[in-house]
């Protein structure tokens, strides 16, 4: 992948034109997945990711190398997404109507399965703060400690939010049936 994240940041700051692209290649999908889970619509998620990467491109000079680049990136992502929370709700409602109408996400993948839509619809029932915790834990596979660092919360608060999110999701996901992969 061309060195670790800190090396790539240093190379970018030194003027290496490929370094920022390599950072995007490493984290673009992850940031997109989180953004999509939060705003609920592909085009809005793409806009959000674009804004985030343009923002970090401008702010990398302020990166202090005191935390992991990924932690810093997800913190920027989460803060940016939360700032867009109200707009996200609007997109979510549009998305939900589209899904309910059986038309799928207009910007989504053609091979979307029912379980993907049902999970997304359930996640959109959560408040943005709970959705972010679920997204970081189960989409990004981050530890409780990493989530706490990104969100600048105690580990106990992270677990409380996860618990609350699961309680909300339980009745919503109860009807989801997993089909074996063909």
């Amino acid at each position: 992948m061309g060195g670790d994240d800190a090396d790539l940041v240093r190379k970018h700051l030194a003027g290496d034109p490929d370094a920022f692209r390599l950072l995007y290649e490493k984290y673009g999908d992850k940031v997109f997945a989180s953004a999509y889970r939060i705003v609920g619509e592909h085009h809005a998620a793409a806009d959000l990711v674009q804004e985030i990467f343009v923002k970090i491109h401008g702010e990398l000079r302020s990166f202090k190398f005191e935390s992991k680049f990924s932690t810093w990136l997800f913190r920027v992502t989460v803060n940016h997404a939360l700032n867009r929370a109200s707009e996200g709700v609007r997109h979510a409602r549009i998305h939900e109507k589209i899904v309910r109408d059986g038309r799928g996400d207009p910007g989504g993948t053609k091979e979307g399965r029912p379980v993907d839509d049902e999970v997304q619809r359930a996640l959109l029932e959560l408040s943005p703060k709970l959705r972010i915790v679920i997204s970081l834990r189960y989409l990004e596979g981050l530890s409780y400690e990493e989530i706490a660092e990104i969100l600048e919360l105690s580990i106990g608060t992270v677990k409380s939010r996860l618990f609350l999110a699961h309680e909300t999701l339980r009745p919503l996901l109860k009807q989801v049936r997993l089909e074996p992969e063909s």
Partner: protein
Amino acid sequence: MNCEAFSDRVFDFLRGGLRDDRAAFDAHRASCPDCAARLAGIRENERILSAARVPTAPPELWPRIAAAVAQGRPLPFRALRLASLAAAAAGLLLVLTLWTSSRPAPAPTLNLVVQEVGPDSQRAFRGLVPKYDDVDAATAMVDTLLRND
């Protein structure tokens, strides 16, 4: 152990990190149907969440980010789609104008046609015009965008 302590420990249990409190945790689970149901629910949620496909970034996103970084500002997807529609409408009007006209007339400028589409479309479209200073190039660009949409 009470229900509150159980909920505090439940993620440690799921991660396999519960040691000292394991006996008390298991005892509470056996005696409290609500907490047992919560634990089963979390497990089932985790199974479903992990089975859901993780969406990936569209391939055209990086070129757009690179262009935005070069320009110092983002170009929103929605604006670009609006611009695509504006340009497609402009192209259609251009063809109709040329087709219905029996006498030679000055070629309509791109700006004149876009004015008929609406102010929002004009704004979105103007961002693209500097890159494509003639109709053929703009039409080719719109064709490419529509194919990728």
